[in-house]
């Protein structure tokens, strides 16, 4: 196992597209780092640069302390699991798993032992004599994993390995990947656009957008302290509600004023010195659906943001209510059985402890 380090890496494709801008990141030995971002953000390219499948334009990549800029893929001692699994269609599952060892000239007995051991770990012992097209999607996924694991490489690179599975299988394989990671103690770099995978699998998450690193943090850090509005709205389902509000100070208290009242920021969070530059100006406030509260009883019951119910999505275990307010549509998470009727007037209140504030211009986090 080894750590991976990218230093000021840029990538410009032959057609002139500048897809990665100054990527600097470090993946520690034994870490499970997830590269997360919308499609087209360059996350797969980062993985391919580490694998050596693409040349880097400028910058340096180190694997286990060794500069690998000019090392061919096969000598980097990494294994990759491709999105489409990339199994060799003309070989059996056994041959697929054994191929990399065979190419490295491993002795027959040792090779056979390693393949069988790996197949046992992944529970595909009885598939060894089948061809890839004779096994199911989930099994193919396991074969691809086995092919990577059997090599005992320094680093595993996984490129959206679960995206071709259905929801049920995806949940199952997620748990299995987690188990595997813990038992192997491996260094894993994992690319996905699915934030649930990122949140549940990664020890750290690297959020990418348009080839620029937005935030590197633990799943909890990314969720609870997004550095800008992009990360705030990209992480979380449904996304964080973002709306403009005016930051004022009244009687020593910081207040987010909106047309129908205001929201006092908790003293513990709001330090006067820190927020002073934004006083009197408009900032972007963010609140997650689970930190907003819906009041249906009486529309005149007091402080809060009034609105009308636009839509109710009930998933069974919970419900989400979209409320049209003076600041646009806001989504609130409510218990599954809460009776809400469409178009009825409601009042929203927010949990001030969990309000996020962003600068209206730079979109960067203030609080």
């Amino acid at each position, binding site marked *: 196992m080894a750590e991976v380090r990218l230093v000021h890496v840029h990538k410009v494709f032959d057609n002139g597209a500048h897809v990665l801008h100054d990527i600097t990141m470090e993946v520690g030995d034994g870490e499970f780092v997830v590269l997360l971002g919308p499609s087209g953000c360059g996350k797969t390219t980062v993985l391919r640069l580490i694998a050596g499948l693409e040349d880097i334009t400028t910058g340096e990549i180190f694997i286990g302390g060794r500069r690998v800029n000019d090392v061919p893929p096969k000598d980097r001692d990494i294994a990759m699991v491709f999105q489409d699994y*990339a199994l060799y269609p003309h070989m059996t599952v056994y041959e697929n798993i054994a*191929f*990399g060892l065979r190419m490295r000239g491993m002795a027959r007995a040792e090779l056979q032992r390693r393949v069988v051991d790996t197949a046992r770990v992944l529970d595909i012992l009885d598939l060894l004599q089948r061809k890839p097209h004779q096994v199911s999607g989930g099994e193919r996924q396991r074969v691809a994993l086995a092919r990577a694991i059997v090599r005992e490489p320094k680093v595993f690179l996984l490129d959206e390995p679960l995206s071709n599975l259905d929801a049920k299988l995806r949940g199952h394989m997620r748990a299995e990947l987690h188990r595997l990671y813990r038992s192997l103690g491996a260094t894993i770099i994992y690319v996905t656009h699915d934030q649930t995978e990122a949140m549940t699998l990664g020890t750290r998450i690297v959020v990418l957008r348009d080839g620029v690193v937005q935030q590197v943090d633990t799943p909890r850090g990314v969720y609870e302290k997004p550095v800008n509005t992009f990360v705030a709205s990209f992480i979380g389902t449904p996304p964080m509600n973002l709306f403009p509000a005016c930051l004022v100070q009244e009687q020593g208290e910081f207040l987010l004023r909106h047309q129908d009242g205001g929201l006092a920021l908790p003293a513990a969070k709001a330090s006067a010195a820190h927020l002073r530059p934004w006083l009197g100006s408009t900032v972007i406030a963010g609140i997650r659906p689970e930190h907003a509260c819906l009041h249906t009883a009486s529309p005149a019951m007091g402080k809060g943001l009034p609105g009308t119910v636009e839509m109710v999505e009930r998933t069974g275990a919970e419900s989400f209510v979209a409320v049209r307010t003076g600041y646009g549509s806001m989504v609130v998470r409510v218990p599954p059985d809460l009776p809400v009727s469409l178009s009825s007037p409601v009042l929203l209140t927010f949990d001030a402890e969990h309000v996020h504030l962003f600068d209206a211009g730079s979109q960067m986090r203030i609080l």
Partner: protein
Amino acid sequence: MKTRRLTTSVIQMVTLSAVTAVLLFPLLLTLLTSLKPAEEIITTAPALFPRHWTLDNYRTLFALRDFPRYLWNSLLVASLTAAATTVIAAMAAYALVWMRFPGKRAMGRSVFFTYMFPDILLVIPLFMVCYELALLDTRTALVLTYLSLSLPFGIWLLKSYFESIPVSILEAARLDGCSEFQCLWKVVLPVAMPAVAAVAVLTFVMGWSEYLYANTLITTNANRTIAIGLQTLAGYHRTDYGLLAAAGIVMVAPVVVFFLAVQKYLVEGLAFSTTKRPE
């Protein structure tokens, strides 16, 4: 239900037989002609089937001193052409699809342009080139010429097939430790077996039956291929259609046998995509 399926089967077989008959009618006609005695061929009222079945035409054919030599020449030239085309085309197609080099795109187009070139136009320049290289009247000249004719098609067909192979399989092979040559040999060729077989067969058939260049570049009887041999026979035995037909059958027999043996591969190789039935 059962009756209906039976009916369908019968209809299928009848249709199929009819279609096959139409498609293979010329071959059948030649075969039947070759089995007729001469007086039944040159007649005012020719019949489809021979009244007297005979192998005389074949006996005459194989008794001709040069015929076995023509067969051997054709076999040699066609096999060498097929082998060389397959190997070179595979390497060229691999480079065109998966390797980076300047002018790749334009080169890919040039290949197709060359494929479209009328063969007849090249006769004069190729004759001149062979003359300069002192290759006139050699089987080497034929192989080289056929290579120049078959490579564009071979490269194009393999390139089309290679393009349907996901690049990730090659990348996996590279990570597994393959050199470019091993990628081609251990991964691409086995996966593209159908297309490779198609190129081999089509090239063999081309070399086996080509007429124009064989006629231009070969001048002595010893180096003639069977296509020219047929023409020569036609010159000596101008009206002996029975003999000509027998020669035609002998000429096409190995092709038909070979085709039937590998047809499954061929068809798979040429149907790049399949319309999938929805669940």
